[in-house]
């Protein structure tokens, strides 16, 4: 009897609720993110489906939803106001939507290092540097995630820090690469000390140091582009 009960429990854990059929999945994948956030509370099977990575991918590839792409601009003219961003149509540059940064505090600013699949990778607040933290921000779901700190401390002496951010589809994983040079950037000469290169993984929320020879400076710490699985 006990055995029967436990195997039944196991089954209900594996199949917590019948997934909606192909048809319902197809229909839901066409809805805007606002509706999906809300419809997670319709029933268990919808809730599970909408969180499912396969469904999220299907939704991101839904052409009927994403006919347009947008440019994101940071409005920082008035630092006393809540810092926010504006989405602009990439064809007409017309204002599409205002976005409010969830952590905003007066006089504090953030700096965006990269963007991919609608997720921004940023540093906040930019000053003082000692209290700066790294975040992933998805303006569509209004969710924000604080990345754990790298175990490699920033030296007090002059240094140069570079980030790259991207999505690895094979692993369904968001990653950050951090390169720490122990000297100021130099446009002509290679670094005299080997830089420390680390990779952050969102799934494990951890940093891993990687051994790689980097005999040149990546000078710009901004203006990063992510395309076809590589950060440039």
């Amino acid at each position, binding site marked *: 009897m006990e055995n029967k009960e436990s195997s039944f429990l196991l089954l209900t854990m594996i199949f917590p*609720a019948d997934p909606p059929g*192909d*048809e319902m999945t*197809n*229909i*839901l994948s*066409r*809805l*805007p993110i*606002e*509706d999906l*956030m*809300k*419809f*997670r*509370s*319709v*029933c*268990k099977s*919808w*809730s599970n489906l909408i969180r499912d990575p396969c469904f999220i991918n299907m939704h991101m590839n839904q052409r*009927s939803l994403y006919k347009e792409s947008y440019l994101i601009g940071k409005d920082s003219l008035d630092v006393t106001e809540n810092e926010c961003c504006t989405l602009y149509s990439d064809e007409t540059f017309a204002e599409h939507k205002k976005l409010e940064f969830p952590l905003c505090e007066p006089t504090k600013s953030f700096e965006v290092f990269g963007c991919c699949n609608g997720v921004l990778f940023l540093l906040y607040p930019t000053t003082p540097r000692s209290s700066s933290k790294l975040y992933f921000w998805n303006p569509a*779901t*209004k*969710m924000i995630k604080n990345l754990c700190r790298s175990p490699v401390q920033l030296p007090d002496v002059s240094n140069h820090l570079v980030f790259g951010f991207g999505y690895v589809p094979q692993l369904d994983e968001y990653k950050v690469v951090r390169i720490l040079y122990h000297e100021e950037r130099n446009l002509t000469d290679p670094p005299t000390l080997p830089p420390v290169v680390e990779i952050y993984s969102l799934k494990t929320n951890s940093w891993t140091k990687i051994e790689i020879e980097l005999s040149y400076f990546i000078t710009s710490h901004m203006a990063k582009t992510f395309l076809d699985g590589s950060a440039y």
Partner: protein
Amino acid sequence: MVKLKSNDDKEFEVEEAAVIQSEMIKNMIEDGCATSVIPLPNIDSKTLIKVIEYLNKHINMGKAAETGEEDDLKEFDEQFVNMGWEELFDVIMAANYLNIHELMELCCQSAADRLKNKSVRAVREMLKITNDLTEEEEQEIINDAPWAFEGPEIDDTVN
């Protein structure tokens, strides 16, 4: 001509050029499995009539662009999806089973458009879904994104 049989034993004759828009039937014909009547145990006659109406209208999709009948086709599609929720869902199930890509696209988009901006309560009622979440689970989802549950655009009507 190809003969299709619905699950309530009604037979329909459809031109081959129309019926091969269904990938499933096209494969059956190519494999030589469609010699007499093709039984469709998942589709009732009412739904099958709708599907055949669509297939006949879309028979010359490629030609429509040349002859300027695109607008006509667009108008037909708009009229076509103007049906009750249950009827629409039956056509979607049939389109998925028969693998008719364009029909699936048309009907799923129409269904999605009807769900857009609806309240959770309205969706449950429209689709006859029983809420099996506990109160705590539901509250957790709401707390996760309270902004999604408020706003003047949310439509609580059922239709």
